[in-house]
Every structure is written in C-alpha cells, then in structure tokens.
C-alpha cells in the first residue's frame, strides 16, 4: 500500500519520554480537567505550566492534585492513584470513591492520558492484561478511565522491545475499552484515531513513508 508524501510536521529525531510528555502537556487546552494514568503519563505533570490552569484528578478521590510530595510534605492520607504521596493545590476538593468515579464515568474529565500495550485503528485500547496463561489479572481504574473521559490520549513507544508495532489492525491483547482512544503519542509519531481510521499528525525522526514500514496498517497524513 503506497503512502502519499505530505507536508506534515516532522523532527530530526524520535522523541525522548520527556519530550513526549512535554508535547502532550502542550496539547492540553487551558482550563482542562485531566487524569494522568500511572507510569509514563505521570511525566506530563512536569510540563504543565501555571498559565494552562490545568486541574488534575486522581481517581482515589481528589481534584486539584499538586506535585509529588517531598520530605515533610509527605502525608500518608494524601496519595495519588499510583499510591505515591502527592500535594494539594489551592482550590482542591476531596470526595469518596463513587463520586470520584462518577466524575470520570459521567464524562466530566476533558482528557485522560494512559499507557498502552496496543491501540487499534478504530481506537480500541489494550493496556491492562497480557492475557498470558497464569498471569494474575488486575484492572484497577483502567476501564473506567478509558470509557469515561471526553478524550483519551495514549502515550507509548511505537514499537515493543521486539520491534512489533503497538498500533495494530486489531488488538491481540485483552481489551480495556472499545473505540475509546482519540490520540496516540509515540516516540516516532502522533496518531489520531476516530471515524475513518487512523491518521498521522506529525512524525519524529522519520518520514511518513518510513513510519508506514513500521506499522502494519495503512497510514495517511491527518487532514488529507
């Protein structure tokens, strides 16, 4: 399948994890309410600016979460969903677990940023379970986050350690949610999912044609 050349933005090199976090942070609209998943997505908080006035939600019952707590700030009653001690910003609020998940499941969060094992062209997400025999399954809030937020952004490396694309025609790992992902941020490109399949917004250190060779689904530039 041929890929048409296009004028989408690119950069000289793949993005580092921090560069990727900076990019996601920049793409979050001012005033948004955001939930950052455990792991790589947590890095995004390092690059949110005060001007953006982003309010962070943690599903264990808080809006207005501040940075990780250090030293004397550590309070065992104030943790995030990853069980890391955090801080409270002015204007914060606390609520119980059902109210917190109602906030997420009711579609009130603007953006949720999650890690992933695989994302399909139609936005299916697999990020909770490898399905390996004998593995003990653990889902946490992943399915609620995937189905609840207005936009679900995924952050991941494009390729597994073995070099397989995590962007797939159809997920082979057990699903977290169906058709829920709206954008995928990877070290090599930003993908948009939705009606009409997957498109590429920008690439990092590769052309669209080079990207196509890594990904087993037909790609086109966004906006074409």
């Amino acid at each position, binding site marked *: 399948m041929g890929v048409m050349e296009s004028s989408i933005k690119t950069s000289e090199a793949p993005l580092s994890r921090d560069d990727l976090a900076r990019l996601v942070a920049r793409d979050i609209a001012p005033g948004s309410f955001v939930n950052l998943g455990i792991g790589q997505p947590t890095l995004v908080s390092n690059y949110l600016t005060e001007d953006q006035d982003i309010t962070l939600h*943690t*599903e*264990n*019952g*808080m809006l207005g979460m501040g940075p990780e707590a250090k030293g004397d700030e550590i*309070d*065992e*009653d*104030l*943790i*995030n969903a990853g*069980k890391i001690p955090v801080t*409270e910003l002015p204007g914060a609020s*606390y*609520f*119980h*677990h*059902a109210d*917190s*998940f*109602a906030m*997420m*499941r009711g579609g009130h969060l603007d953006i949720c940023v999650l890690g992933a094992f695989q994302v399909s062209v139609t936005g*299916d997400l697999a990020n909770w*379970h490898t399905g390996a025999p*004998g593995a*003990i*399954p*653990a*889902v*946490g*809030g*992943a*399915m*609620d986050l995937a*189905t*609840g937020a207005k936009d679900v952004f995924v952050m991941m490396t494009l390729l597994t350690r073995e070099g397989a694309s995590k962007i797939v025609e159809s997920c082979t790992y*057990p*699903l*977290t*949610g*169906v058709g829920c992902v709206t954008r995928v941020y990877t070290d090599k490109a930003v993908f948009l999912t939705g009606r009409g399949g997957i498109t590429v917004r920008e690439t990092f250190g590769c052309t669209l044609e080079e990207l196509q060779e890594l990904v087993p689904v037909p790609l086109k530039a966004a906006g074409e």
Partner: protein
Amino acid sequence: MLNFVDSVQEAVSGIQDGSTVMIGGFGNAGQPFELIDALLDCGATDLTVVNNNAGQGDQGLALLIKEGRVRKMICSFPRQSDSWHFDARYKAGQIELELVPQGNLAERIRAAGAGIGGFFTPTGYGTMLAEGKETRIIDGRGQVFETPIHADVALIKALKADGKGNLVYRKTARNFGPIMAAAAKHTIVQVSEIVPVGALDPENVVTPGIYVNSVVRVPADAGSSEKVA
C-alpha cells in the same frame, strides 16, 4: 443501633464465619489496620472480602489471606509487587477472585447502600470482564449490567466521629469509607478522635451516623511504625 466500644477486639467480635466483609482504604490511606488485625485475631473464617486490592506485604489483609481465612476476594487490583500471599493462594487455586473495574466496584457498593437493584454502565463493555454478563446498547453505547455488592460488615477508618456516629475523613483517606458504610448491614469504624455531639458542622458531615454501628477510637499514631510506606 450505635455503640461506642473500648477495643478493636470488641468491635469485631460479632463477625461470623462466612461473612462478606468490606474493608476500606486505598493503599495505606484509609486502611483500618487495627480493625483488620483484630479480625485476624478473632478467628472468623470462610470470608468474602471486598477491598480495592488483595493485600500487600506481610500485614493486614495479606495475613488474612495467608492464614486461609478468605474464601473469595472481590477487588479491582489484586496483583502488586508485594501481593505474594494472594499470588500464592490464587496460583494454588485456594482463593476465588472476582475482578471488578474500580469504578464498577465503587458504583456497585454505592448501589447496595442506595437500594438499587442493578445498573448499566459502559465500563467493561466489549472486554473479557463483561463475558457472561447481560449487555445492551443504550443511546448508541454498549453497556454492561452490574449488580450491587452488599456486605454483612464494613471495617472502615475515619478521622473523627461525634456522639451520634457522624463521620468526617481526612484527604484521600476518605475513598471507599462512605459507600462501604452504607452498603454493609453492620459498619465498624476506627477513628482517631471522638468528639461531642454538636462538634461537627452539620454541613460537613460526610457519613451520617445512620450508617454507623460501632465506633472505636484508635489513636492516629498507634502502630504506624509497622505500616508499609
């Protein structure tokens, strides 16, 4: 009926073999460690336990599981780096697991307290956690039918109780406390402080005393050195 009891041992003394026991807390925040220890000591067995996790390290719920007292776990996230006691029992086929997305866990507990017979939610639709469950499309969205989780007993931790059993919590230690208190037939609360009736502002009560049956004071620093950070 509301009782103020003198010890965690007395608080849990009525828990029967075969009970369903909800245990509050998310991570260490809001975990009623002393009540769990008392449950371990009291000997009740064949328990179904509802908690977000399935025990960590060598304490609390993990010890209940290690000692073979838990027949079934209902939780969202059993697998952690230090959930070895659960892992061992599970791999040996000695404990049943009902894995529930965390939001469904919270909403199902809330439904029990609120008298809801069941509800439809998009969470889990199209995934293996919806296998065998009733589904339907509502307003164009696939949804899964989920049922309430009731319990015989809830063990929770709050910051303060007043003389009517009204509770307030502290920061993210609130988590499952209020909904478990409403979902259980008998709710046992450990608090750092008991204050007189009238000392809590009625606007700020989080769990009204109607949901509380037994209150025991456990000073905030009791045993905290034993806790995993």
